[in-house]
């Protein structure tokens, strides 16, 4: 009579059969960042060097800056482990813990959404706010409510945005020499002039093709839609992210901006295209709106979440004081992840029944309401016909 081990059903796990485990998912996520990192390096380093606007050492700076972000946040997380847990004093134990909590990710993301000439100590501050405050204080990987990278980014934005502008900001050495750049970034221009016209918004930067390729001013990782698209295809093919979330998010922004464009008297497709190609929308949609820990877990919730993100982004972008609406809307939606998840889980489990239709209707009304408000309000802001919708909003 042999005695056997206990265990819980099911006794087969895809993880044990070479299926996707969390480590592989995070590894594939890091691989997905490579096209973006390489493009950032090409645009802000190699290209500038070829133009003869910097030395060979300065050429390496963008790459070093991005990698530094990852290293800083790993160091900080290791420090937190040493301070909080008396048993992890050996280097091996710390490395194991850092490995399991994927410390490198937030730092890399923070560096990628910062402009190139951010002072290093500001980057350190961002990594501190992101990994320590945004992640570790909530209980570490899997427990954080807010996307750590966004916490770091917004902390920098609220405190040191002027400083970044003074030290060079968004323009790389080649771009500084171009006179036609009115605002620092295309979205900065939109926020400054509050008009929808090709001449002020797109013409200074060339054509929309440049927006797609990413040869416009902006923070390190966000400018190239092409590089992000490559990452998107890789990440979706590896099933690291759900393809639907970025598509719905970007699609919502596209459609709402189109409506705004039409209502303001310009029905061309260039304005919605400009809206989705400029700023951090693509980057946020692919790398942050899909971040698993801080977004809803069930498929219906993910769709609602993406819709709300799109609506809020348009609202913040068109009406808000800051040029960028993506980061703010992501952080706001992080707060609403738990209720959205709860409500959509109930709706999905029960179907639309007597019990759930009120909740479903309320959710739909919120989306439509914010969307309608964003559109009318921004139309009133941008249109020359004052009081387009009677000025009620």
């Amino acid at each position, binding site marked *: *009579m042999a005695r056997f081990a206990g265990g819980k059903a099911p006794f087969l796990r895809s993880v044990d059969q070479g299926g996707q485990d969390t480590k592989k998912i995070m590894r594939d996520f890091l691989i997905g960042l490579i096209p973006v990192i390489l493009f950032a390096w090409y645009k802000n380093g190699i290209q500038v060097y070829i133009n003869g606007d910097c030395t060979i050492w300065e050429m390496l700076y963008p790459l070093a800056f991005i990698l530094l972000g990852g290293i800083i946040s790993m160091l900080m997380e290791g420090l937190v482990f040493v301070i909080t847990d008396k048993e992890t004093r050996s280097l091996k134990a710390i490395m194991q813990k850092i490995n399991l909590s994927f410390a490198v990710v937030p730092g890399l993301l923070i560096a990628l959404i910062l402009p190139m000439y951010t002072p290093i100590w500001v980057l350190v501050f961002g990594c501190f706010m992101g990994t320590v405050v945004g992640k570790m204080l909530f209980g570490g990987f*899997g427990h954080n409510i807010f996307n750590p990278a966004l916490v770091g980014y917004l902390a920098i934005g609220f405190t040191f945005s002027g400083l970044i502008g003074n030290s060079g900001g968004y323009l790389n050495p080649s771009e500084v020499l171009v006179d036609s750049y009115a605002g620092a970034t295309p979205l900065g221009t939109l926020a400054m002039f509050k008009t929808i016209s090709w001449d002020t918004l797109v013409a200074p930067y060339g054509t929309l093709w440049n927006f797609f390729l990413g040869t416009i001013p902006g923070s390190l990782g966000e400018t190239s839609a092409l590089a992000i698209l490559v990452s998107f295809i890789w990440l979706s093919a590896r099933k690291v992210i759900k393809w639907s979330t970025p598509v719905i998010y970007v699609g919502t922004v596209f459609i709402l901006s189109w409506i705004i464009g039409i209502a303001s008297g310009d029905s061309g497709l260039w304005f919605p295209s400009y809206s989705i190609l400029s700023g951090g929308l693509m980057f946020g949609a692919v790398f942050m709106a899909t971040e698993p820990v801080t977004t809803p877990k*069930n498929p219906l919730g993910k769709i609602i979440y993406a819709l709300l993100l799109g609506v809020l982004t348009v609202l913040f972008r068109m009406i808000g004081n800051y040029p960028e609406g993506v980061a703010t809307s992501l952080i706001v939606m992080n707060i609403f992840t738990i209720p959205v998840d709860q409500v959509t*889980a*109930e709706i999905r489990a029960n179907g639309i029944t007597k019990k759930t239709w009120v909740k479903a209707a309320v959710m739909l009304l919120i989306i439509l309401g914010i969307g309608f408000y964003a559109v009318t309000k921004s139309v009133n802001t941008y249109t020359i016909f004052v009081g387009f919708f009677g000025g009620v909003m």
Partner: protein
Amino acid sequence: MILRKAKGKHIDGRKQMSRCQPLQEYLNPSHVYLPLVHQNAVLKRVVEVGDDILVGQVVAEREGFGAMPFHASVSGKVSAVKKVWHASGKMVEAIEIENDNLNRLSESIKPETNVDNLTREQLIKKMQDAGLCGMGGASFPTYVKYQTKSPIDTIIINDVECEPYLTCDCLLSQTFPEKVLKGLKYFMKAANATKGVIAIKYYNRNVIDLFNSLLPNYPGIAIQEMKDIYPAGWEKYIVEQVSGKTYDKLPSEAGVIVNNAATAVAFSDMVENNIPLISRVITITGEGIKQPQNFLVPIGTKVAELIAKTGGYVDNLDPAKSWYIAGGPMTGRAILIDDLIVDYPLGSVIVMPMPEEKDHPECLGCGRCSDVCPVFLTPTSIKSAYERKDIAAIGKLNAMKCMGCGLCSYVCPSHVEITDFVAKAKDMYRKGAK
């Protein structure tokens, strides 16, 4: 409805291990142990220690809901009433019968003379008297299904066997295809149904061909080929695939009754020869078994004897680091000791080494579990509701719909025991709701 389409998941079946071997008979163990428990009911014993027992003699009775008799599977003497390990993972009382190897049949076992003239009521009476219960796993008394008031038009034989490793139904239908079809014919008669469907996975070509060659003699019966996904053998999924209809609680709401293939084989013996339910096919398989095999055995046989008969465990098996699973690998139960008895619903025993212990990261919230859930639950939400002991939320999240298929744990990249959490949440809800 959009976002509510269950897709299932392909799981490597690993069935070839036990499938290439023919079905073996092991009809005369030295002792059999008839458990005095059925589903959750305790049976009333009607024989005493020392009694002489014939094959097919009633030894115990279930009372109340699902009342039916249980029969001796060998002839001989009742030598003791003692506790034995059971597939439920507990020790239960069982009647020990010492086999005299004479196979003396009880008088009731005789060929039926007028098979074709049996009425619906007579057939249902036969099911009850012969103690027929579902042999797919739940062991639900079959006659209760057929006493339904709703009109039944289709009988489905579940020959899908979507659990990995298991091949008992496949080998049974390969060995007795005629009996499966006959059983289905009698089932159709017992429910006044006009249509019979055998649901089977598409890759079991040889079995499908066998059935097809016999089908001309059985009007109204068709084969439905199923995809190779888990849980394709789930009752609701089969009914949906076959009839396009869905139901809330019982398949009879959709005019359908689903029976396992093994139940059909047993029923055809019952109708034609009045043999009660005294034997079943069991798969002994897993990486820990030298030569995996299927056995036709009397109920109450010790599994340890069967394992010895296959050639025993592989040489380097460390029992303390292996699982000994009663039932399929997805829904079965780890038993701590290999001294188990064969019961009606026990389709297989799997011995496999435990995977290596590793550190697993936290749940990252990827939502794969809710993607694969065939009943559209969100296991992570149920888990958090369970952790904060929010019984109302567990109810709202419809956790009771979970049938424990195990897919959520299977796909989890962080190795969270999420199926177990949902099961605990269900327990909590059941207690709280009372």
